[in-house]
Structure formats: C-alpha cells, structure tokens
C-alpha cells in the first residue's frame, strides 16, 4: 500500500514538491546531454539492428528458394546432358521452374570480372541452369543421386554453403545492435545515478530542511526522481528526434545505395523510436530511485 502510494506519487504533479530542489546545477545539464547523446546513438544501433535483421530475412528468403545446376562436359555432349538434366529437373517434385542460362545471361554474370566485350562464345564455359523452387523446396540429396546416374558432369549448388554464413553474420550484426542498445541504456543509467547522487549530496541542506518539517523519504526522493526522469525523457526525446531526422534524410537522399541506405527504418519500424524516450525515462526513474534511497540512508 505504502509503496504503491510511493510509486503513484512519482507520476502525480505536485508543484510545491517539484520546486523544493533548486532547479539549476551541472547535474541537470549532464543528465539532459547524456540522455540526448545516448538517445541519438540508440537510434543508430536500432537502425543497424533492424536493417541487419531485415537483411538476414531477405537473404534467407531469397536464396533459400533458388539453386544452380552446373554442367561441365565436352562440347559435343553438353547439349544432350543439358536436355537430360532439364528432363530430370522438370519431373522433380518441389521444383517450380528450371531455366538454362543463355549466352547473354552468362555474359552478364561474367561482365564484372571480364568486361562487356569478352567473346564468351569462344570460351568453354559450363552450362548453367537456374532452378526456382516451390515453397516446400525439393529433396537435394535425391536429385543429386539421380543426376549422377544420367548427367555425370552436373554439380548441384543449392547455395547453402554460402547462404548460411551470410545469414548468420547478419543475425549476429542484429544481435550486436541490440547489445549496443543495452550497453548505452546501462551507461545512461550509471551516469544518471551518479548525477542524482551528486545532486542529492549537493542538496544535503535542502534534505535536512525537508526532514526537519516531517518529509518522508518518499517525498524527498520523488522531488529528485521526477526531475531526473523528466530530464532523461526530454534528453532522449531530443536525441532520438535528431537521429530520426538524420535517417529520414540519409535514406531519402541515397536511394540508389541499397546497402548503405538499408541501414534505416522502414514503415512501421519508425514506431520503435517512440519507445526510446519512455524507456530512458523509466531507466532514469529506477536509477534515481535507487540512488535516492542510498543517499537518504547515508544522510540520516
């Protein structure tokens, strides 16, 4: 009952109580500045985390539904083996479509390495078949066994080998972003705790007067807690607003740079930013409350 009243007291506005602590001091600036900077950085960490998560989903989803069949054979046998491979692929459950890459497709693939003018028709290149899977996928082991028998030069690549590390890397990057947010929040809590303790020690005389006239610990603590929580909330709001503005213009201006501009917010993801100020306010509330109890215990 008492603690409920104590907590509800933090949220009710008491003009007189809110004024008992002198409004100025370096701790006010420190709390506001720290929260603003941390709020700004949290926006970046959140953007990184969300973008990595998006990337992991995208790679996982896009590459999971495609595979490539490479057929290396003497020129006179190549066409025959391709036809056999197509026949097998078209009768394999779970394969939606199998398309042989023509010379133009192959030229486009090699262009980044050899340039646009390479005489690709003179090169002994393997034939490539692009496989699109159905949602349920296909049995790659079974397909390999069938290909070994009829198309000895075929090598099936279902992209697992390099898809998995990419997805894992993106997932780790996302986790790193979340971990950074935790670190920043923790650092803010530590900074606010120090600021609150410094403020209370500097206002020992105020606390002494309040005790003299019968103030309970909850009343004294609330005067400091409310102030620090509001400062942390305001600082984080300013910081996250600045971060949001930066990302809004960053992504808007460079649409063509998909990897870089991927680090940002899309659609409903922007709503996450509204959580930053209340979280900082809550963290400050808990940190200051704890600091206040400690200092009031020491000053008694």
């Amino acid at each position, binding site marked *: 009952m008492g603690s409920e009243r104590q907590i509800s007291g933090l949220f009710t506005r*008491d*003009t*007189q*109580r809110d*004024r*008992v602590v*002198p*409004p100025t001091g370096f701790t006010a600036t420190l709390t506001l500045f720290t929260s603003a900077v941390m709020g700004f950085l949290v926006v970046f960490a959140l953007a990184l985390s969300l973008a990595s998560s998006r990337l992991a989903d995208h790679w996982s989803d896009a590459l999971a539904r495609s595979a490539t069949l490479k057929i290396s054979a003497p020129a006179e046998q190549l066409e025959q083996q391709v036809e056999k491979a197509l026949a097998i692929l078209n009768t394999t459950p779970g394969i939606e479509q199998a398309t042989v890459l023509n010379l133009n497709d192959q030229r486009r693939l090699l262009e980044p390495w050899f340039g646009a003018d390479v005489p690709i028709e003179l090169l002994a290149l393997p034939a490539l078949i692009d496989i699109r899977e159905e949602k349920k996928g296909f049995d790659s082991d079974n397909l390999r066994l069938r290909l070994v028998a009829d198309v000895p030069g075929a090598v099936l690549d279902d992209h697992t080998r390099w898809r998995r590390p990419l997805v894992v890397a993106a997932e780790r990057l996302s986790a790193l972003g979340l971990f950074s947010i935790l670190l920043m929040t923790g650092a803010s809590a530590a900074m606010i705790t120090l600021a609150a303790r410094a403020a209370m020690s500097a206002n020992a*005389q*105020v606390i*002494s*007067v*309040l*005790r*003299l*006239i*019968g*103030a*309970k*610990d*909850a*009343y004294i603590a609330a005067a400091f807690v409310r102030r620090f929580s509001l400062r942390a909330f305001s600082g984080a709001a300013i910081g996250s607003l600045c971060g949001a503005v930066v990302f809004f213009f960053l992504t808007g201006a460079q649409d063509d740079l998909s990897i870089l501009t991927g680090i940002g917010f899309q659609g409903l993801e922007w709503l996450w930013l509204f959580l930053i100020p209340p979280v900082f306010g809550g963290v400050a509330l808990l940190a200051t409350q704890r600091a206040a109890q400690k200092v*009031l215990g020491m000053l*008694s």
Partner: protein
Amino acid sequence: MIEFDAASYSYTGGELLSEMSLTITPGAFYFITGPSGSGKTTFLKMCYGALLPNSGGLQIFGRDVRELTRDDIALIRRNIGVIHQDCQFLDHLSVTENIALPLSVSGQDRLSDNLNLKELLTWVGLKGRASALPPELSGGERQRAALARAVINSPELILADEPTGNVDWDMSQRLLQLLIELNKMGKTVLLASHDLSLIRLAKSQVQARVLRIANKRIQLAGADL
C-alpha cells in the same frame, strides 16, 4: 508527551548529557537554559528524534525512539514545530512557499487553497513580505517566518532553539509574545535560551518552568530565575 528515562548522550569527544530523567507535559511552557556548549541544542534535537540517546530511554508521543523508522520520525515531526537559530529555509523559495512547505510535505491542502496562510502571515507580521526570498529578510523577519512555518501544521509541541539569538531586544519580546500566545492556545513550548532577561519577562506573563543544563545534567531551576 516526551519522556526521558536516564537518557545519556555522548559525542565522540565524550559525554555531553548524562542520565536525564524528566517528562515534558502537554500544555506547559519550558525554558531550557545553560551556558554555551552545555547541550541545549542536543537536548532539543533529542526531543524531535534527530539524535538518539546512547543509553537510557526516550519516548516521544508515547513511542520509543529506538523502534522508530525514518518515516515514523517524519510523521512524529509533523506534530512538532522546530525553530532553529539559523532558521533553515530553502533560499530559492519565497517566504510564503517556505512557510507552506509543511503542508505540501504532509500532503495537505495546496498553497493556493490554504486560507489560513494569510492570517498566519499577518499574525507574524510578514504580510508585506510574502513573496520575498529568505536571504532578503532581516534576522527578526526570518525568525518570525520560521515560527510561522513551525506552527502551520498546528503541532502540539513547539521547539525553539535560541530564536532570539540574532535579534534585538524588541524583536526578542515580539517573538516571545508569539510563543506565549501559542502556549495559551494549548501548545507545549520548549524554548532554549541563555537570555535571563527574556526568561524573567516570560515568567511574568506565563507559568514557565525553567530547566537548567549544567555539568551534563538537567534540573529544574530554582526561584532565582
């Protein structure tokens, strides 16, 4: 109201008050007198639970101080008005806000709703100084403001520690009259002072008991005062 039972108090430097046994009875007017450093302030601080006896017993409003939590002591202090020599104000708040602070602390009516505040300011003669800040007040005005703050919650007990120490004789008399008025309203008053003229003046107007602290002990003073 307050009961000392062989209570002693020691600082790290040694014993200051030794085996005090006395009872503060409701409605009485007490003077605490004694030389500087004899322990008058310490005695008053024990009366409102700011200091605990090292040995012996002390009960405030029937409760053993050793069993009280900080919040219990806070509740008890709402029934005790304390006036220090240095007044102890919050310098960034106006006189009115300082005087009304005990109301906010005890969760009573807000400042604007308190109709008694104007009467109280008039009673202590600070009506025209309501919006002044404490550093702008003279010594006498500060003491009167401290008195107003001490009584705004209508406490049963008023403790005044050398309230006339920094003011002239006229102002001392005025403060004394205010305390006597409060006593006549039924409040118990404990006034620490080494000013014998003031004590004699009070005794001519009210039945005051004089407690003298000497040689670490407290005793009822004789008829010489």
